[in-house]
């Protein structure tokens, strides 16, 4: 007796769907966790060390770094880096809770993923509002 082939799902596509916008919220959170982690390792971490080296090294170095951060473009890039850190932070806490079997079902996992995106954006906006 041979098993009948399972019918293809209605939305079957014979190629990999690489469009990130088609991912459900937990999937999008996951890939952003990965991308933000890689970007934090490089170039954000060495850039931060460079700024700390200059700013804590001498009075002139501090003034130079202070001058750079007065420029709107530098501020925007810094807020982008802060968003990456905030997202990695909140998504990481969500993963720790999932490891403790908290909110593993589909509905709470989806809700917590959306909450992580909201918290990451909120934290970034808060810091941006205070520093602008």
């Amino acid at each position, binding site marked *: 007796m041979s098993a009948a082939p399972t019918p293809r799902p209605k939305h079957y596509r014979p190629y990999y769907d690489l469009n990130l916008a088609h991912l459900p919220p937990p999937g999008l959170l996951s890939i952003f966790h*990965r991308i933000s*982690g*890689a970007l*934090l*390792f*490089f170039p954000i*971490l*060495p850039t931060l*060390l460079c700024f*700390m*080296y200059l*700013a*804590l*090294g*001498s*009075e002139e170095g*501090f*003034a130079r770094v202070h001058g750079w951060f007065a420029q709107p473009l530098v501020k925007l890039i810094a807020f982008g880096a802060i968003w990456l850190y905030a997202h990695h*932070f909140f998504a*990481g*806490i969500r993963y*720790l809770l999932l*490891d403790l079997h908290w909110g593993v079902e589909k509905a709470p996992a989806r809700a917590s993923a959306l909450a992580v995106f909201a918290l990451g954006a909120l934290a970034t906006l808060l810091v941006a509002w205070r520093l602008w």
Partner: protein
Amino acid sequence: MKAYRKNPVGAHYGLGEWLLQRLTAVVMALFTIVMFACIVLEAPHGYAGWKSFFTGTTVRLATMLFVVALLYHAWVGMRDILMDYLRATGIRLALQAAVGLALIFYLIWAASILWGR
């Protein structure tokens, strides 16, 4: 006679690394919250303010603990990414070595910023 069976699951360091990645994450998360609160409360201002903030022994040691945790955490994370996307062993190992060297460089640099000069 018991037949020799090759153990298919490798060197068994996976679980330890997985656990340490979580542990280092907790260390860094706590540091982030406490450091954020300290900076908001103390509000260091200018070169002298920031310099004295980062010369406090507690801040120095906590920051070094953060950097060490980050070193291990980033190592596991970057290695996972490289293992997932790069199948060519030579390129993967070369990049893993570069990541490891970069992380050791970051560690020495952070220590010299905090204690040097």
